[in-house]
Protein backbone atom coordinates (compact mmCIF):
# COMPACT_ATOMS: atom_id res chain seq x y z
CA UNK A 1 0.00 0.00 0.00
CA UNK A 2 2.97 2.27 0.67
CA UNK A 3 4.19 2.08 -2.92
CA UNK A 4 1.05 3.57 -4.65
CA UNK A 5 0.79 6.27 -2.03
CA UNK A 6 4.31 7.42 -2.81
CA UNK A 7 3.50 7.45 -6.50
CA UNK A 8 0.42 9.55 -5.83
CA UNK A 9 2.39 11.89 -3.62
CA UNK A 10 5.03 12.21 -6.33
CA UNK A 11 2.45 12.87 -8.96
CA UNK A 12 0.69 15.48 -6.81
CA UNK A 13 4.02 17.12 -6.12
CA UNK A 14 4.86 17.19 -9.84
CA UNK A 15 1.40 18.57 -10.62
CA UNK A 16 1.76 21.26 -7.96
CA UNK A 17 5.14 22.30 -9.32
CA UNK A 18 3.79 22.34 -12.85
CA UNK A 19 0.82 24.48 -11.78
CA UNK A 20 3.16 26.91 -10.05
CA UNK A 21 5.11 27.19 -13.29
CA UNK A 22 1.89 27.86 -15.19
CA UNK A 23 1.03 30.56 -12.67
CA UNK A 24 4.35 32.18 -13.54
CA UNK A 25 3.53 32.12 -17.24
CA UNK A 26 5.34 29.00 -18.39
CA UNK A 27 3.07 27.28 -20.89
CA UNK A 28 5.69 24.82 -22.08
CA UNK A 29 5.71 22.59 -19.01
CA UNK A 30 3.98 19.19 -19.41
CA UNK A 31 3.43 16.41 -16.91
CA UNK A 32 4.17 12.71 -17.21
CA UNK A 33 2.05 9.92 -15.79
CA UNK A 34 4.98 7.56 -15.30
CA UNK A 35 2.78 4.89 -16.86
CA UNK A 36 0.16 5.03 -14.10
CA UNK A 37 -3.30 4.82 -15.59
CA UNK A 38 -5.09 6.60 -12.76
CA UNK A 39 -3.11 9.83 -13.48
CA UNK A 40 -3.72 9.77 -17.18
CA UNK A 41 -6.98 11.74 -17.26
CA UNK A 42 -5.55 14.52 -15.08
CA UNK A 43 -2.28 14.62 -17.05
CA UNK A 44 -4.09 14.69 -20.40
CA UNK A 45 -6.40 17.49 -19.24
CA UNK A 46 -3.44 19.47 -17.88
CA UNK A 47 -1.40 19.03 -21.05
CA UNK A 48 -4.37 19.93 -23.27
CA UNK A 49 -4.91 23.05 -21.17
CA UNK A 50 -1.25 23.93 -21.62
CA UNK A 51 -1.41 23.49 -25.38
CA UNK A 52 -4.47 25.67 -25.54
CA UNK A 53 -2.90 28.33 -23.30
CA UNK A 54 0.32 28.32 -25.31
CA UNK A 55 -1.55 28.83 -28.59
CA UNK A 56 -3.78 31.55 -27.19
CA UNK A 57 -0.92 33.44 -25.62
CA UNK A 58 1.26 33.31 -28.71
CA UNK A 59 -1.57 34.54 -30.94
CA UNK A 60 -2.23 37.33 -28.43
CA UNK A 61 1.42 38.28 -28.48
CA UNK A 62 1.35 38.37 -32.26
CA UNK A 63 -1.79 40.53 -32.20
CA UNK A 64 -0.19 42.96 -29.77
CA UNK A 65 2.94 43.18 -31.93
CA UNK A 66 0.82 43.87 -35.03
CA UNK A 67 -1.17 46.42 -33.10
CA UNK A 68 2.03 48.24 -32.15
CA UNK A 69 3.19 48.25 -35.77
CA UNK A 70 -0.21 49.52 -36.98
CA UNK A 71 -0.34 52.15 -34.28
CA UNK A 72 3.10 53.37 -35.25
CA UNK A 73 2.07 53.51 -38.90
CA UNK A 74 -1.06 55.45 -38.00
CA UNK A 75 0.85 57.96 -35.93
CA UNK A 76 3.34 58.31 -38.77
CA UNK A 77 0.59 58.78 -41.38
CA UNK A 78 -1.20 61.33 -39.19
CA UNK A 79 2.04 63.24 -38.64
CA UNK A 80 2.69 63.36 -42.38
CA UNK A 81 -0.90 64.37 -43.10
CA UNK A 82 -0.79 67.32 -40.72
CA UNK A 83 2.67 68.32 -41.92
CA UNK A 84 1.28 68.19 -45.44
CA UNK A 85 -1.56 70.54 -44.55
CA UNK A 86 0.81 72.99 -42.88
CA UNK A 87 3.22 72.93 -45.81
CA UNK A 88 0.47 73.45 -48.40
CA UNK A 89 -0.90 76.32 -46.31
CA UNK A 90 2.49 77.99 -46.04
CA UNK A 91 3.13 77.51 -49.76
CA UNK A 92 -0.16 79.23 -50.53
CA UNK A 93 0.53 82.14 -48.18
CA UNK A 94 4.03 82.64 -49.58
CA UNK A 95 2.92 82.34 -53.18
CA UNK A 96 0.88 85.55 -53.36
CA UNK A 97 3.53 87.93 -51.99
CA UNK A 98 5.99 86.11 -54.25
CA UNK A 99 3.79 87.00 -57.22
CA UNK A 100 3.87 90.66 -56.15
CA UNK A 101 7.69 90.62 -55.85
CA UNK A 102 7.84 89.05 -59.30
CA UNK A 103 5.73 91.83 -60.84
CA UNK A 104 7.50 94.66 -59.00
CA UNK A 105 10.92 93.43 -60.07
CA UNK A 106 9.55 92.89 -63.56
CA UNK A 107 8.18 96.43 -63.77
CA UNK A 108 11.48 97.81 -62.52
CA UNK A 109 13.22 95.89 -65.29
CA UNK A 110 10.70 97.15 -67.86
CA UNK A 111 11.34 100.73 -66.79
CA UNK A 112 15.11 100.31 -66.88
CA UNK A 113 15.04 98.76 -70.32
CA UNK A 114 13.36 101.91 -71.65
CA UNK A 115 15.84 104.25 -69.92
CA UNK A 116 18.93 103.61 -72.03
CA UNK A 117 20.49 106.92 -70.83
CA UNK A 118 20.70 105.79 -67.20
CA UNK A 119 24.25 105.28 -65.84
CA UNK A 120 24.98 101.80 -64.45
CA UNK A 121 21.78 100.57 -66.07
CA UNK A 122 23.39 97.23 -66.97
CA UNK A 123 24.27 96.62 -63.35
CA UNK A 124 20.71 97.32 -62.20
CA UNK A 125 19.29 94.99 -64.81
CA UNK A 126 21.71 92.27 -63.74
CA UNK A 127 20.60 92.73 -60.12
CA UNK A 128 16.98 92.35 -61.15
CA UNK A 129 18.00 89.18 -62.96
CA UNK A 130 19.25 87.98 -59.59
CA UNK A 131 15.89 88.74 -57.95
CA UNK A 132 14.07 86.95 -60.76
CA UNK A 133 16.26 83.89 -60.37
CA UNK A 134 15.44 83.69 -56.65
CA UNK A 135 11.74 84.20 -57.34
CA UNK A 136 11.96 81.28 -59.77
CA UNK A 137 13.60 79.18 -57.11
CA UNK A 138 10.81 79.90 -54.58
CA UNK A 139 8.23 79.44 -57.29
CA UNK A 140 9.65 76.00 -58.03
CA UNK A 141 8.95 75.01 -54.42
CA UNK A 142 5.52 76.61 -54.00
CA UNK A 143 4.28 75.35 -57.35
CA UNK A 144 5.47 71.86 -56.65
CA UNK A 145 3.60 71.81 -53.38
CA UNK A 146 0.49 73.57 -54.66
CA UNK A 147 0.49 71.57 -57.88
CA UNK A 148 0.65 68.44 -55.82
CA UNK A 149 -2.11 69.54 -53.45
CA UNK A 150 -4.28 70.40 -56.43
CA UNK A 151 -3.99 67.02 -58.07
CA UNK A 152 -7.06 65.38 -56.65
CA UNK A 153 -8.47 64.17 -59.93
CA UNK A 154 -6.90 60.94 -61.01
CA UNK A 155 -6.60 59.94 -64.62
CA UNK A 156 -6.75 56.16 -64.73
CA UNK A 157 -4.82 54.57 -67.57
CA UNK A 158 -3.41 51.12 -68.23
CA UNK A 159 0.19 50.92 -67.05
CA UNK A 160 2.77 48.42 -68.24
CA UNK A 161 5.02 48.75 -65.22
CA UNK A 162 8.08 47.19 -66.87
CA UNK A 163 7.88 49.59 -69.75
CA UNK A 164 7.42 52.49 -67.36
CA UNK A 165 10.56 51.48 -65.43
CA UNK A 166 12.50 51.43 -68.70
CA UNK A 167 11.15 54.86 -69.62
CA UNK A 168 12.07 56.23 -66.21
CA UNK A 169 15.64 55.05 -66.72
CA UNK A 170 15.52 56.84 -70.06
CA UNK A 171 14.37 60.11 -68.46
CA UNK A 172 17.25 59.97 -66.03
CA UNK A 173 19.85 59.11 -68.64
CA UNK A 174 21.84 62.27 -68.07
CA UNK A 175 21.95 61.92 -64.27
CA UNK A 176 22.96 58.27 -64.67
CA UNK A 177 25.68 59.10 -67.19
CA UNK A 178 27.16 61.87 -65.04
CA UNK A 179 27.44 59.44 -62.14
CA UNK A 180 28.61 56.57 -64.39
CA UNK A 181 26.09 54.52 -62.40
CA UNK A 182 25.10 51.02 -63.44
CA UNK A 183 21.31 50.91 -63.34
CA UNK A 184 20.20 47.30 -63.80
CA UNK A 185 16.58 46.41 -64.42
CA UNK A 186 15.37 43.10 -63.09
CA UNK A 187 11.89 42.92 -64.56
CA UNK A 188 9.51 40.04 -63.99
CA UNK A 189 8.09 38.91 -67.32
CA UNK A 190 4.37 38.77 -68.03
CA UNK A 191 3.22 41.13 -65.28
CA UNK A 192 -0.44 42.15 -65.50
CA UNK A 193 -1.34 45.65 -66.64
CA UNK A 194 -2.19 48.01 -63.77
CA UNK A 195 -4.92 50.63 -63.95
CA UNK A 196 -3.76 53.76 -62.17
CA UNK A 197 -2.59 57.34 -62.65
CA UNK A 198 0.34 57.13 -65.05
CA UNK A 199 1.86 60.56 -64.44
CA UNK A 200 1.79 60.18 -60.69
CA UNK A 201 3.23 56.67 -60.62
CA UNK A 202 5.93 57.85 -62.98
CA UNK A 203 6.75 60.78 -60.70
CA UNK A 204 7.24 58.38 -57.78
CA UNK A 205 9.54 56.10 -59.79
CA UNK A 206 11.56 59.03 -61.13
CA UNK A 207 12.03 60.30 -57.56
CA UNK A 208 13.17 56.92 -56.27
CA UNK A 209 15.55 56.08 -59.10
CA UNK A 210 17.00 59.58 -59.08
CA UNK A 211 17.58 59.41 -55.32
CA UNK A 212 19.22 56.00 -55.70
CA UNK A 213 21.57 57.22 -58.43
CA UNK A 214 22.46 60.27 -56.35
CA UNK A 215 23.11 58.06 -53.32
CA UNK A 216 25.63 55.70 -54.91
CA UNK A 217 29.31 56.56 -55.28
CA UNK A 218 30.72 57.25 -58.73
CA UNK A 219 30.25 54.08 -60.81
CA UNK A 220 27.93 52.58 -58.19
CA UNK A 221 25.09 50.13 -58.80
CA UNK A 222 21.32 50.54 -58.67
CA UNK A 223 18.90 47.68 -59.22
CA UNK A 224 15.24 48.16 -60.06
CA UNK A 225 13.08 45.07 -59.58
CA UNK A 226 9.48 44.54 -60.61
CA UNK A 227 7.33 41.67 -59.40
CA UNK A 228 3.83 40.62 -58.50
CA UNK A 229 3.55 41.15 -54.74
CA UNK A 230 0.24 39.28 -54.56
CA UNK A 231 -2.68 38.61 -56.92
CA UNK A 232 -3.79 42.25 -56.82
CA UNK A 233 -0.58 44.21 -56.23
CA UNK A 234 2.52 45.09 -58.22
CA UNK A 235 5.77 45.88 -56.45
CA UNK A 236 8.72 47.90 -57.65
CA UNK A 237 11.87 47.88 -55.56
CA UNK A 238 14.73 50.32 -56.08
CA UNK A 239 17.96 49.18 -54.40
CA UNK A 240 21.11 51.20 -54.22
CA UNK A 241 24.59 50.35 -53.03
CA UNK A 242 24.94 53.72 -51.37
CA UNK A 243 26.01 54.46 -47.81
CA UNK A 244 22.59 53.57 -46.34
CA UNK A 245 20.45 55.67 -44.06
CA UNK A 246 21.26 56.03 -40.36
CA UNK A 247 18.37 54.83 -38.14
CA UNK A 248 17.76 58.30 -36.72
CA UNK A 249 16.97 59.58 -40.23
CA UNK A 250 14.66 56.72 -41.25
CA UNK A 251 11.71 58.14 -39.29
CA UNK A 252 12.07 61.55 -40.86
CA UNK A 253 12.59 60.35 -44.41
CA UNK A 254 9.10 61.13 -45.66
CA UNK A 255 8.82 64.49 -43.92
CA UNK A 256 8.63 67.54 -46.18
CA UNK A 257 11.91 69.45 -46.54
CA UNK A 258 13.92 66.67 -44.92
CA UNK A 259 17.06 66.23 -46.98
CA UNK A 260 20.63 65.17 -46.41
CA UNK A 261 21.72 66.20 -49.89
CA UNK A 262 24.01 69.14 -50.42
CA UNK A 263 22.45 72.58 -50.39
CA UNK A 264 20.79 73.30 -53.70
CA UNK A 265 20.73 69.64 -54.78
CA UNK A 266 17.50 68.57 -53.12
CA UNK A 267 14.49 70.36 -51.67
CA UNK A 268 13.42 67.41 -49.53
CA UNK A 269 10.07 67.16 -51.27
CA UNK A 270 10.54 64.08 -53.46
CA UNK A 271 9.85 61.37 -50.89
CA UNK A 272 7.17 63.42 -49.16
CA UNK A 273 5.31 63.85 -52.44
CA UNK A 274 5.90 60.22 -53.42
CA UNK A 275 4.49 59.04 -50.12
CA UNK A 276 1.37 61.18 -50.62
CA UNK A 277 0.91 59.93 -54.18
CA UNK A 278 1.19 56.25 -53.23
CA UNK A 279 -1.31 56.72 -50.42
CA UNK A 280 -3.67 58.46 -52.78
CA UNK A 281 -3.35 55.63 -55.29
CA UNK A 282 -4.20 53.08 -52.60
CA UNK A 283 -0.66 51.73 -52.51
CA UNK A 284 2.29 52.19 -50.22
CA UNK A 285 5.94 53.07 -50.10
CA UNK A 286 8.39 51.65 -47.59
CA UNK A 287 12.11 51.64 -46.97
CA UNK A 288 14.72 49.23 -45.70
CA UNK A 289 18.16 50.55 -45.03
CA UNK A 290 21.15 50.26 -42.76
CA UNK A 291 24.44 52.16 -42.74
CA UNK A 292 26.93 50.41 -45.00
CA UNK A 293 24.26 48.11 -46.44
CA UNK A 294 22.60 50.35 -48.99
CA UNK A 295 18.95 51.25 -49.24
CA UNK A 296 15.88 49.65 -50.78
CA UNK A 297 12.66 51.53 -51.44
CA UNK A 298 9.65 49.40 -52.22
CA UNK A 299 6.52 50.72 -53.87
CA UNK A 300 3.35 48.67 -53.88
CA UNK A 301 0.72 49.57 -56.41
CA UNK A 302 -2.74 48.01 -56.53
CA UNK A 303 -3.52 46.60 -59.98
CA UNK A 304 -6.91 48.26 -59.83
CA UNK A 305 -7.12 51.65 -58.24
CA UNK A 306 -9.72 51.70 -55.48
CA UNK A 307 -10.99 54.84 -53.81
CA UNK A 308 -9.15 55.82 -50.68
CA UNK A 309 -11.49 57.74 -48.42
CA UNK A 310 -8.73 58.80 -46.08
CA UNK A 311 -7.42 62.33 -46.65
CA UNK A 312 -3.75 62.09 -47.58
CA UNK A 313 -3.22 65.56 -46.12
CA UNK A 314 -1.89 67.51 -49.01
Amino acid sequence: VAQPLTKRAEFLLALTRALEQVAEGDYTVRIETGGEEEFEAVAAAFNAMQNRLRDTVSSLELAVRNLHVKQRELVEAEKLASLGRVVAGVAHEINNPLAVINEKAGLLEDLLVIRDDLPSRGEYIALIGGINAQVDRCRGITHRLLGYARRVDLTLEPIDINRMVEEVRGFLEQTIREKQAAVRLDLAPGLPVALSDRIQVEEVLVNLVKNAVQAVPHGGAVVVTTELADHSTLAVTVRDGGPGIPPENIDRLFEPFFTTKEKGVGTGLGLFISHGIMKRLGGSISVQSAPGKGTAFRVELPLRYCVVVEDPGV
Partner: protein
Amino acid sequence: VSKAVLVIDDEREFCETIARRLQLRGYAARAFTRAEEALESARSARPDVVLLDLKMPGVRPMELLMTIRQLVPGVRVILLTGHLDHELRLEGLRLDSFPYLMKPVAIERLLAAIEGLPESGEDR
Protein backbone atom coordinates in the same frame (compact mmCIF):
# COMPACT_ATOMS: atom_id res chain seq x y z
CA VAL B 1 -4.79 97.45 -82.77
CA SER B 2 -3.79 97.02 -79.14
CA LYS B 3 -5.97 94.75 -77.07
CA ALA B 4 -8.00 96.00 -74.12
CA VAL B 5 -7.17 93.97 -71.02
CA LEU B 6 -8.99 93.94 -67.72
CA VAL B 7 -7.02 92.75 -64.69
CA ILE B 8 -9.20 91.65 -61.78
CA ASP B 9 -7.46 90.65 -58.56
CA ASP B 10 -8.10 91.62 -54.95
CA GLU B 11 -4.36 92.07 -54.38
CA ARG B 12 -3.97 95.71 -55.40
CA GLU B 13 -0.17 95.66 -55.57
CA PHE B 14 -0.36 92.73 -57.91
CA CYS B 15 -3.01 93.80 -60.36
CA GLU B 16 -1.89 97.42 -60.64
CA THR B 17 1.68 96.36 -61.37
CA ILE B 18 0.53 93.86 -63.98
CA ALA B 19 -1.67 96.52 -65.61
CA ARG B 20 1.25 98.96 -65.69
CA ARG B 21 3.55 96.40 -67.29
CA LEU B 22 0.92 95.64 -69.92
CA GLN B 23 0.47 99.37 -70.60
CA LEU B 24 4.22 99.68 -71.17
CA ARG B 25 3.79 97.03 -73.84
CA GLY B 26 1.04 98.93 -75.57
CA TYR B 27 -2.05 97.25 -74.15
CA ALA B 28 -5.02 99.25 -72.92
CA ALA B 29 -4.93 97.64 -69.48
CA ARG B 30 -7.00 98.52 -66.43
CA ALA B 31 -6.78 97.08 -62.93
CA PHE B 32 -9.68 96.35 -60.59
CA THR B 33 -9.64 95.01 -57.07
CA ARG B 34 -13.43 94.85 -56.69
CA ALA B 35 -15.73 92.66 -58.70
CA GLU B 36 -18.61 95.18 -59.06
CA GLU B 37 -16.35 97.88 -60.49
CA ALA B 38 -14.70 95.40 -62.79
CA LEU B 39 -18.10 94.25 -64.12
CA GLU B 40 -19.16 97.86 -64.60
CA SER B 41 -16.03 98.47 -66.67
CA ALA B 42 -16.46 95.23 -68.61
CA ARG B 43 -19.98 96.34 -69.55
CA SER B 44 -18.87 99.69 -70.92
CA ALA B 45 -15.30 99.10 -72.11
CA ARG B 46 -15.79 95.63 -73.68
CA PRO B 47 -12.31 94.22 -73.07
CA ASP B 48 -10.75 91.65 -75.41
CA VAL B 49 -9.07 89.81 -72.56
CA VAL B 50 -9.82 89.46 -68.85
CA LEU B 51 -7.13 88.30 -66.42
CA LEU B 52 -9.07 87.01 -63.47
CA ASP B 53 -8.24 85.78 -60.01
CA LEU B 54 -11.21 83.69 -59.03
CA LYS B 55 -10.69 84.25 -55.34
CA MET B 56 -12.42 87.59 -55.09
CA PRO B 57 -13.93 88.33 -51.68
CA GLY B 58 -17.72 88.20 -51.53
CA VAL B 59 -18.16 86.82 -55.03
CA ARG B 60 -18.86 83.28 -56.09
CA PRO B 61 -16.11 82.42 -58.58
CA MET B 62 -18.38 80.62 -61.04
CA GLU B 63 -20.89 83.50 -61.04
CA LEU B 64 -18.21 86.07 -61.71
CA LEU B 65 -16.83 84.05 -64.59
CA MET B 66 -20.24 83.51 -66.17
CA THR B 67 -21.29 87.14 -65.73
CA ILE B 68 -18.17 88.34 -67.55
CA ARG B 69 -18.84 85.91 -70.38
CA GLN B 70 -22.43 87.09 -70.69
CA LEU B 71 -21.49 90.77 -70.58
CA VAL B 72 -18.75 90.43 -73.18
CA PRO B 73 -19.42 87.59 -75.59
CA GLY B 74 -16.25 86.25 -77.14
CA VAL B 75 -14.00 87.63 -74.42
CA ARG B 76 -10.87 85.62 -73.63
CA VAL B 77 -10.81 84.88 -69.92
CA ILE B 78 -7.49 83.80 -68.44
CA LEU B 79 -7.55 82.55 -64.88
CA LEU B 80 -4.59 83.82 -62.95
CA THR B 81 -4.53 82.07 -59.68
CA GLY B 82 -2.46 81.43 -56.58
CA HIS B 83 -3.89 77.97 -56.26
CA LEU B 84 -6.98 76.07 -57.21
CA ASP B 85 -8.65 75.05 -54.04
CA HIS B 86 -11.59 73.03 -52.88
CA GLU B 87 -14.23 75.74 -53.35
CA LEU B 88 -13.59 75.86 -57.06
CA ARG B 89 -13.71 72.12 -57.38
CA LEU B 90 -16.91 71.99 -55.39
CA GLU B 91 -18.41 74.42 -57.84
CA GLY B 92 -17.74 71.82 -60.48
CA LEU B 93 -15.62 74.22 -62.45
CA ARG B 94 -13.84 72.37 -65.18
CA LEU B 95 -10.59 74.27 -65.10
CA ASP B 96 -9.29 72.46 -68.13
CA SER B 97 -11.80 74.38 -70.21
CA PHE B 98 -10.18 77.74 -69.41
CA PRO B 99 -6.64 78.83 -69.99
CA TYR B 100 -5.10 79.38 -66.60
CA LEU B 101 -1.75 80.39 -65.23
CA MET B 102 -0.35 79.96 -61.79
CA LYS B 103 1.15 82.93 -59.99
CA PRO B 104 3.88 84.01 -60.07
CA VAL B 105 3.91 83.94 -63.84
CA ALA B 106 6.69 84.94 -66.22
CA ILE B 107 5.67 87.95 -68.31
CA GLU B 108 6.44 86.14 -71.59
CA ARG B 109 4.02 83.40 -70.66
CA LEU B 110 1.35 85.89 -69.70
CA LEU B 111 1.76 87.78 -72.97
CA ALA B 112 1.52 84.53 -74.91
CA ALA B 113 -1.71 83.70 -73.11
CA ILE B 114 -3.15 87.15 -73.82
CA GLU B 115 -2.34 86.73 -77.50
CA GLY B 116 -3.76 83.21 -77.45
CA LEU B 117 -0.49 81.60 -78.48
CA PRO B 118 -0.05 77.87 -77.98
CA GLU B 119 2.76 78.10 -75.43
CA SER B 120 0.32 79.59 -72.95
CA GLY B 121 -1.58 77.45 -70.55
CA GLU B 122 -0.62 75.71 -67.44
CA ASP B 123 2.95 74.92 -66.56
CA ARG B 124 3.44 71.50 -65.07
